């Protein structure tokens, strides 16, 4: 049995198990949740450490396990890791642990909360571990619903219900649009299977006609784009995260949101290379919208969560840029950004959640001097914000740097070659180094520097090692990635290269006219 | 001769049907019911012209006899007056007429254009004997099902009109 099955199965089992625990024993609920996520995190780290030596299974994946599910539809439960989802699984498991740790703040309906949290964790890890396209989607949806309910029930603020609904509808729309694309991919591949390895092999040998790829790719690109808050489909993110309970925001912004990027990178681009080449220039424009436009929007925010939300949207732009660059360096960087930003977003939302509990407000105008009042929180938050503006030493820097390096070498033609992709890189670098620094430093200045805000005089740091543990774990993960990026990049690179090669190798298949009976969609 | 009878019966049936649904002189349900009875009778005449004697008889017995008596009985029981509210919703009436006109147009054009009767001659004699045989041989299943249906109808009437509500 693959450890992956355990990694995604344990939280789901725990969710079922927690249903049986009486609702009054909150301690048991908490302990089980923390223990399960800790075990899962430990297993995931073990996965990372044992990755290099593990035997290579089908399709170059390791730790594979495949169980037929609905054979007549070509669906099987199929898990495995390569360089790309390895980091995401590890990140997801660690963030889940941190999220379980910060959940001590939940007092109301604890049982339902932990059941949903475990469900969400299992879904998230399953989504990243699955190598069956159907299950990819399946687990993602499985993780989404707890998100909505958690925002609605345990969320904060007056507008949490409308926020929960907006996020529900918006993400459902994105997921369904992507689902159409995935189904089209499945049907058009000719093999009628959702097995990613078979799909990849088949489509590498017999690529789909270019015209069909042009048609299918945008469904995936826009559908997944909505899931990842691609500009201009991003407005749900700050709103939703502003209203979400801490753990949900951590898990969603940190991990689940990466799903769209992951599928784009793992499924859409390599399986539809011609479609990718056709549409990625548009993606490049849109990711500038993320990086610059959302950066500017973030500059104007007065509420900490809105700021983090918008900055998280902005960071996602780098992943898109890396994907659009279609170079090994750029794609590796994109994956790195995904992982690092996962930790960062989780850390930021964990801290903002903590701050919110202090006074029930995240209005930065009313804060000030918190570095003195809350030295621990303040220090960690300042470090998180520094990581957010791409400071070396944190994983984000490595990722963003690789994206920029890769992007410069990209030969993607924008507007028929009139505009060099290098301008996009320059603009992205401006967004990373200047715009991000502006809003982050302004926030630090307002929140942590200067004289102390009146309403914050009674606030306290988290006390005790357990309370501080989640923040430390996330911070250490970020630092580890920044200091020793080869922990991941060595694994990512070969997989990224495969994807890039798949696109480069692709020759447009003979035009569709040669395939009778199938008019071009 | 039969053609003349056809036009007489058919014209009267249509006229009575019109009087049933849109009597310009009276909105009384009783009038409608009586005109409906007449329509049934003329229809039975048409059935006779089509040599469906048994059906014609059933038409008179069941429809004109039983069903319409039931209607009249209920009307009397409820002591229904004329439809009091006479303010016609002009839009509704217009739309209704357009719809019905549209339906009639569709049906008529289809019937005329499809030449359904082309090359066909009236041949079949709907003898009671043949009907009975078919009913109790090939059509035994729906026949039995109708018996259950009648039972359901009976049950329903009893349930709906039973006075005591336990």
């Amino acid at each position: 049995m693959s450890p992956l099955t355990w990694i995604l199965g344990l939280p789901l089992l725990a969710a079922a198990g927690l249903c049986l625990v009486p609702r009054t024993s909150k301690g048991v609920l908490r302990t089980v949740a923390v223990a399960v996520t800790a075990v899962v995190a430990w297993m995931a780290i073990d996965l990372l450490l044992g990755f290099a030596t593990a035997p290579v299974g089908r399709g170059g994946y390791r730790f594979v396990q495949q169980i037929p599910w609905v054979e007549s539809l070509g669906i099987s439960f199929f898990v495995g890791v390569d360089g790309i989802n390895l980091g995401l699984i590890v990140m997801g498991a660690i963030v889940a642990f941190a999220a379980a740790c910060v959940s001590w703040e939940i007092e109301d309906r604890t049982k339902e909360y932990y059941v949903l949290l475990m469900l969400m964790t299992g879904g998230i890890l399953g989504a990243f571990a699955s190598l069956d396209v159907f299950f990819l989607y399946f687990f993602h949806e499985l993780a989404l619903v707890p998100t909505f309910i958690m925002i609605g029930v345990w969320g904060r603020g007056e507008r949490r219900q409308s926020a929960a609904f907006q996020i529900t509808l918006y993400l459902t729309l994105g997921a369904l649009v992507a689902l159409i694309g995935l189904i089209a991919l499945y049907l058009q591949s000719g093999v009628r299977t959702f097995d990613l390895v078979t799909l990849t092999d088949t489509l590498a040998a017999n690529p789909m006609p270019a015209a069909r790829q042009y048609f299918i790719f945008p469904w995936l690109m826009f559908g997944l784009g909505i899931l990842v808050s691609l500009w201009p489909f991003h407005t749900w993110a700050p709103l939703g995260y502003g209203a979400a309970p801490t753990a949900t925001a951590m898990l969603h912004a940190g991990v689940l949101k990466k799903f769209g990027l992951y599928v784009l990178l793992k499924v859409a681009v390599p399986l539809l290379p011609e479609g990718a080449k056709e549409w990625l220039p548009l993606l490049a424009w849109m990711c500038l919208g993320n990086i610059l436009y959302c950066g500017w929007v973030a500059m104007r925010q007065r509420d900490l969560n809105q700021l983090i939300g918008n900055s998280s949207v902005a960071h996602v732009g780098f992943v898109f840029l890396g994907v659009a660059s279609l170079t090994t360096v750029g794609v590796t960087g994109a994956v790195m950004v995904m992982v690092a930003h996962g930790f960062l977003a989780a850390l930021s939302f964990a801290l903002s959640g903590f701050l919110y509990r202090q006074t029930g407000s995240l209005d930065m105008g009313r804060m000030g001097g918190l570095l003195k009042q809350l030295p621990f929180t303040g220090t960690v938050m300042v470090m998180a914000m520094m990581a957010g503006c791409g400071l070396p030493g944190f994983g984000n820097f490595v990722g963003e740097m690789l994206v920029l390096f890769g992007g410069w070498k990209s030969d993607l033609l924008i507007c028929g070659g009139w505009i060099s992709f290098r301008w996009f890189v320059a603009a992205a670098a401006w967004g990373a180094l200047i715009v991000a620094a502006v809003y982050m430093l302004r926030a630090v200045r307002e929140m942590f520097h200067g004289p102390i805000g009146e309403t914050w005089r009674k606030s306290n740091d988290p006390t005790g090692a357990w309370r501080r543990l989640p923040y430390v774990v996330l911070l250490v993960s970020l630092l580890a990635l920044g200091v020793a990026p080869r922990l991941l990049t060595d694994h990512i690179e070969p997989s990224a290269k495969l994807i890039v090669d798949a696109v480069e190798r692709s020759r447009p298949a003979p035009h569709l006219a040669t395939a009778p009976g199938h008019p071009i969609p | 001769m039969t053609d003349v009878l056809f036009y007489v019966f058919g014209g009267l049936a249509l006229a009575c049907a019109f009087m049933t649904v849109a009597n310009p002189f009276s909105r009384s349900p009783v009038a409608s019911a009586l005109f409906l009875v007449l329509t049934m009778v003329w229809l039975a005449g048409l059935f006779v012209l089509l040599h469906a004697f048994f059906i014609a008889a059933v038409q008179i017995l069941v429809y004109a006899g039983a069903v319409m008596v039931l209607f009249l009985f209920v009307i009397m029981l409820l002591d229904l007056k004329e439809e009091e509210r006479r303010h016609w919703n002009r839009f509704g009436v217009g739309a209704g007429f357009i719809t019905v006109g549209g339906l009639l147009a569709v049906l008529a054009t289809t019937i005329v254009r499809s030449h359904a009767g082309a090359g066909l001659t009236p041949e079949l004699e709907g003898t009671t004997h043949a009907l009975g045989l078919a009913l109790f041989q090939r059509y035994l299943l729906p026949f039995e099902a109708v018996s259950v249906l009648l039972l359901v109808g009976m049950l329903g009437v009893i349930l709906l009109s039973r006075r005591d509500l336990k």
Partner: protein
Amino acid sequence: MKVGLEHYLLISAGLFSLGLLGVILRRNLLVMYMGLELMLNAANLALVAFSRYNKNLDGQLMVFFIITVAAAEVSVGLALIVALYRRRQSAHVEDLTSLKF
């Protein structure tokens, strides 16, 4: 003109339309119901005519079933209308709008 199948069918189409007109325009439930009976009778006429011209008895058998079913339906329907009238003292569709939107 020689009377043929089309003539019967046109009569039946006319009856059907008139029945529908009754359902749409009349507000008394009973009269509406009469309109429905008219529509069924139109179908009967068409069936009998087809039966005769198609040399197939099935049409007449269908009429037989329709008449029977209609009788059952009418009895239940009228009982229902009576039951409603007992509670609402009205058989007007406009008084029958407590369930809406």
